């Protein structure tokens, strides 16, 4: 890439990494997105709603490509389509968190159509559209100061909304019947959370691409929840992993030719494998001991 190359001198590496403004912005945006995705994803995984996150991400793709086609920023397409999608899902879905079985065919149908529309928009747009890979698999190039500010503002808004509903949301996720009996407006809380997820998905899509949002939204929280059941600690671990994967992933991508979507996802996946491997070994040894 543009760099002189990776050295074992960390100071020199950091200096190289941040010598260009686009890279500074990549780190700013990546940091915002990692914090937002780690915290909101923590609740998404708790509620067993990863599938909804995936659906919203797929909806993000035609949103972004459509926005570019009509000449506005892709970011508006991401936010607009994700939030609209969340409201539609919130309005039509029944049942409890995680129970999406009866609607899975509907969701699959909508996903296919969304992807097809996105493909159409990309094809119709013959101009300077970076390319379809960027929308699907992410890119850290060319993030403007204004984009960083938008990410920060929307991310803060989403996190504040999450903080307000956090406790009843957790109650409703674990124990919807008792929460309802205690007066928690379960449906309202679920729908607000879907909108919060939509904002997180839209933000994450802008770094990892629509297809790789899980690398920050699902993988770090799932890993953290496997490490500990302490709620605050595991949420903090989720954010820490998302940050680490983003920061190190961007650096690797900068010094090598590997795309950031790949490096970030691979780092998150490596942590997941490590933790589950360690757990498997631990329980295996435990079983062995019991067998003796």
């Amino acid at each position, binding site marked *: 890439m543009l760099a002189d190359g990776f050295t074992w001198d960390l100071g020199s590496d950091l200096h190289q990494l941040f010598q260009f403004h686009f890279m500074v912005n990549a780190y700013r945006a990546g940091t915002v997105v990692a914090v937002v995705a780690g915290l909101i994803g923590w609740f998404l995984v*708790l509620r*067993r709603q990863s599938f909804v996150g995936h659906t919203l991400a797929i909806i993000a793709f035609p949103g972004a490509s459509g926005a570019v086609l009509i000449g506005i920023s892709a970011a508006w397409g991401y936010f607009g389509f994700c939030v609209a999608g969340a409201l539609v899902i919130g309005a039509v879905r029944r049942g409890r968190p995680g129970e999406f079985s009866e609607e899975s065919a509907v969701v699959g149908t909508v996903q296919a159509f969304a992807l097809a529309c996105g493909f159409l928009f990309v094809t119709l747009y013959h101009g300077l559209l970076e390319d379809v890979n960027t929308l699907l698999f992410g890119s850290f190039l060319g993030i403007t100061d204004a984009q960083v500010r938008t990410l920060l503002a929307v991310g803060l808004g989403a996190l504040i909304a999450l*903080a*307000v*509903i*956090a*406790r*009843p949301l*957790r*109650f409703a996720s*674990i*124990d919807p*019947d*008792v*929460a*309802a*009996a*205690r*007066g*928690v407006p379960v449906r309202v809380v679920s729908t607000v959370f879907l909108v919060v997820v939509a904002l997180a998905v839209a933000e994450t899509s802008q770094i990892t691409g629509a297809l790789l949002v899980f690398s920050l939204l699902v993988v770090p929280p799932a890993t953290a*929840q*496997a490490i*500990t*059941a*302490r*709620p*605050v600690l*595991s949420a903090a671990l989720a954010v820490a992993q998302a940050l680490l994967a983003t920061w190190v992933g961007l650096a690797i991508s900068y010094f090598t030719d590997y795309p950031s979507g790949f490096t970030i996802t691979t780092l998150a996946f490596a942590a997941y494998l490590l933790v589950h491997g360690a757990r498997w070994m631990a329980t295996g040894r435990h079983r062995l001991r019991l067998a003796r």
Partner: protein
Amino acid sequence: MSESERRGLRTVTPADETGGASSAPSPLGADPVVELEAAGVELGGRPVWSDLTLTVAPGEFLAVLGPNGAGKSTLLKTLLGLIPTASGRVRVAGRRPGVGNRDIGYLPQRRSFDPSLPVRGIDVVRLGLDGDRWGVPLRSTGPVRDRLEQLLELVGATDLAGRRIGQLSGGEQQRLLIAQALAREPRLLLLDEPLDSLDLANQAAVAALIADISDTEQIAVLIVAHDVNPVLPYVDRVLYLAGGRALVGAPEVVISGPTLSALYGTPIEVLRTSDGRLVVVGHPEAASYHPQLHPHEAPAG
């Protein structure tokens, strides 16, 4: 698995024959916790039960029996204000249902928790304390911690505080959920089949725990049960729901062959085993009853 329901353990006092009016034993002369006057509920336009009159005093332990679909869970949801009444009058702690749910501890029908769910025993109890409040508490304050410790001690679950809820046995989960229901010092406990899918030893232990708490804290308890035997030593009265009718009475008066035969219009015998368990024989749906065949829970790790 509700053999006893299908066989129709059924309880009626002579006074109840016409519709279920009952005078609750009111040891302290205190205000009743639950009052229903000729109450009726409809679901999807079809009446579930009607003309239910019942008064429950503080500290009273009442078992709710009846076949599947008789509206036992519906009764609990009505008291919570989750289902509206179609007729009659319902008061919970002197107020309309749904208004004073802070005074009610509710245990819905058995929930299953994923073993990997990142929720510890103490988190489950804490939900009962302040899980419905807005905002995020990052640290437990002293009074909250003290109350949680007290609750865990009350149900004998202190050593379960740090374990994941989904990895505990059914009996252990039930203790924590009872602690959750008790968190705000309710005046009324609504328990929907809390003994279901517990093994016999745990059924007895959890029933004794509930009865003890009801007695010492003067909490009225409505317990939906598919088998009256585990709670038989503790119940003051039983409420039987069947065929849209509701009957209330003392168990020893009511669980008798002639009464049940009259109710079902078919010969039914009630046998008493040497250890005091009641076995109802003769109901058409009751082929046999083997409590020992209930799914046994996995031993605690």
